[in-house]
């Protein structure tokens, strides 16, 4: 699939597309907050998310044609002004956010009705759109401090949105509180790190920072800046062992939020971390490589093994999938730790694949949650019979998670493993293989219960998801399949993004 085929360029609009991808959901959020009814809020949400996704598509097309896009805000050239700087990598992640955001917005129509009190719907939609705008901003911005602002834009609302899951499961409240504490510490660490870098370079623009860091000797402040930024973003990205907030927040929050966060939030943070690792500290030589090899790779491996095992032994279905998310983040970091273009490209591809598959899985569970309020794995016995389409979509997501051939997840795992072999890291390769088997174990458990077990007598029966849920759900599942057969769209962007970062890093 070629980008050009998807998007017919309109120069006037394309020039403004990066900012519109952020501003439209922002204004949409305000409009949703003012909406007279939940239904109106839902429609605003869908339209705004869709426009944002469309703009992200325009940006991606432009990036493929022109290379990196710079957009100066306020008409001031960086470093004085803030600029958006979109490369292929950012375009890809923003596209993921836009696509999942749009489908999630469509899905929200039914899921909110089931999970959140009616008078809160408009606010909920507003918060959701803010989160989307914040993440796109986080991905597009070329300014280190501006990234913090967008990190908070995307977070502050979501803390409350997670907590709004209390209507169904009151554990959402302490989970959200925990998320807030950890998230804020992470963001503050990030600010401290940016402070150090600002103190050392006198600039906040990431490109300028990179240029100036290149001329500096290694000093303690720069190293600390690096450490605090990585730790701070590590919290946001659920890097093992800073992932403690994630299982609770994903497991107990409302379906819409679990789905959206799982698909995008950690990705945006990981993306930002990648930019610092490979762009701002281009040849942080000894320091950067040492970090990648001796910190990031072991932590990634630990995440893969430990959290996959936790998922194997988890009793609640959503918790299982949440633990699986942490493990998958580990896979992505393993790709990063290879510190070469093919590893980074593979990791980026993996991020996209994981975003799509997790969104499908959480959305399917959300669709089921409309009819059964089940949490434990056993409660899902035999849902494939009652809700075949939903179950099939879940199954496709799960297949992609395992890395079944012909799904996107397979190509993602394939690429990282191939890159690991090419880089001579046999142990990373082995960890990936072991992690895949563990994934197979817990996914197998779920599939067995859902598809091959009889429902317990007297248990609440699941119903097929309504059309409003099924359509976005099947689109998500379909994307996981489509990109498993023709991966050129994400692959082009991932490769171009990785290549552009490694040009500066021979």
């Amino acid at each position, binding site marked *: 699939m070629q980008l050009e085929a998807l998007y017919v360029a309109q120069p006037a609009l394309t020039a403004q597309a990066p900012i519109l991808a952020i501003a439209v959901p922002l204004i949409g959020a305000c409009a949703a907050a003012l909406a007279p009814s939940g239904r109106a809020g839902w429609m605003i949400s869908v339209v705004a998310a869709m426009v944002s996704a469309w703009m992200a598509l325009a940006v991606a097309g432009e990036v493929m044609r022109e290379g990196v896009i710079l957009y100066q805000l306020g008409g001031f050239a960086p470093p004085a002004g803030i600029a958006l700087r979109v490369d292929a990598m950012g375009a890809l992640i923003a596209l993921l956010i836009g696509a999942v955001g749009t489908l999630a917005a469509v899905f929200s129509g039914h899921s909110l009705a089931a999970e959140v009190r009616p008078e809160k719907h408009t606010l909920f939609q507003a918060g959701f759109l803010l989160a989307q705008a914040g993440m796109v901003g986080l991905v597009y911005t070329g300014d280190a401090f501006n990234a913090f602002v967008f990190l908070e834009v995307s977070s*502050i609302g979501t803390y409350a949105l997670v907590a709004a899951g209390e209507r169904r499961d*009151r554990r959402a*409240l*302490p989970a959200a509180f925990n998320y807030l504490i950890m998230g804020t510490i992470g963001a503050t660490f990030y600010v401290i790190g940016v402070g150090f870098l600002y103190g050392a370079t006198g600039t906040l623009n990431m490109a300028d920072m990179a240029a100036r860091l290149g001329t500096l000797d290694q000093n303690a402040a720069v190293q600390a800046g690096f450490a605090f930024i990585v730790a701070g973003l590590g919290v946001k990205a659920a890097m093992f062992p800073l992932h403690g907030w994630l299982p609770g927040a994903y497991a107990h929050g409302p379906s819409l939020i679990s789905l959206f966060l799982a698909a995008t939030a950690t990705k945006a943070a990981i993306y930002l971390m990648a930019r610092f690792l490979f762009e701002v500290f281009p040849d942080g030589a000894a320091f950067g490589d040492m970090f990648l090899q001796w910190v990031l790779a072991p932590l990634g491996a630990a995440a893969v093994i430990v959290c996959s095992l936790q998922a194997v032994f988890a009793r609640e279905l959503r918790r299982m999938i949440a633990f699986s998310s942490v493990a998958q983040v580990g896979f992505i970091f393993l790709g990063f730790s290879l510190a070469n273009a093919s590893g980074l490209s593979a990791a980026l591809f993996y991020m996209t694949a994981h975003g799509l598959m997790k969104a499908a899985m959480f959305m399917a569970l959300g669709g089921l949650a409309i009819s059964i309020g089940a949490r434990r794995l056993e409660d899902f016995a035999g849902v494939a019979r009652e809700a075949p389409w939903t179950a099939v979509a879940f199954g496709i997501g799960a297949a992609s998670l395992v890395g079944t051939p012909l799904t996107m997840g397979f190509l993602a795992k394939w690429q990282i493993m191939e890159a690991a072999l090419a880089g001579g890291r046999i142990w990373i390769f082995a960890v990936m293989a072991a992690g895949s088997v563990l994934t197979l174990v817990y996914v197998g458990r779920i599939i067995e219960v859902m598809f091959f077990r009889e429902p317990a007598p007297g248990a609440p029966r699941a119903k097929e998801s309504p059309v409003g849920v099924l359509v976005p759900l099947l689109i998500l599942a379909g994307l996981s399949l489509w990109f498993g057969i023709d991966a050129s769209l994400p692959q082009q962007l991932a490769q171009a993004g990785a290549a552009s970062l490694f040009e500066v890093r021979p």
Partner: protein
Amino acid sequence: MSWIATHFNYVVVVILMMAGLFIVFSSGNLIKRMIGLALFQSSTALFYISFGKVSGGTAAITLDAQGAEGQALAAQLDPAYVAQFGVEGVVYSNPLPHVLILTAIVVGVATLAVGLAIAVRVRESYGTVESDEIDAVSRVAAEQAEPAP
């Protein structure tokens, strides 16, 4: 100038950060943890502002160097210093960290409000704001949810 004098501010910032982090990690009371978080966040303000200070500088509100205020300020400083580091005859402190910290303070109060609101809801739902008691309640609920063996 000894190291402690040139880096005194930073040491204090670190102490305040540690105090804030310690409260967040050690306390089980949700409200107290929010207070600790606020302390932690505000210490970053001190951090940024500290390295934006310029010796002998004044607030970044443009002055007329020839005016009374400008003259008075210049009188306290070495003219060569003013010539090198001043802008049109006046030495200012760095405005950029101020702007950043304005943002950070606002983010801090937003976080505090949302965090406390969640804490209030926790109290309403669980009857307590102590983590240990919340955990105990959750555990009991989880055990009840399990079917009898």
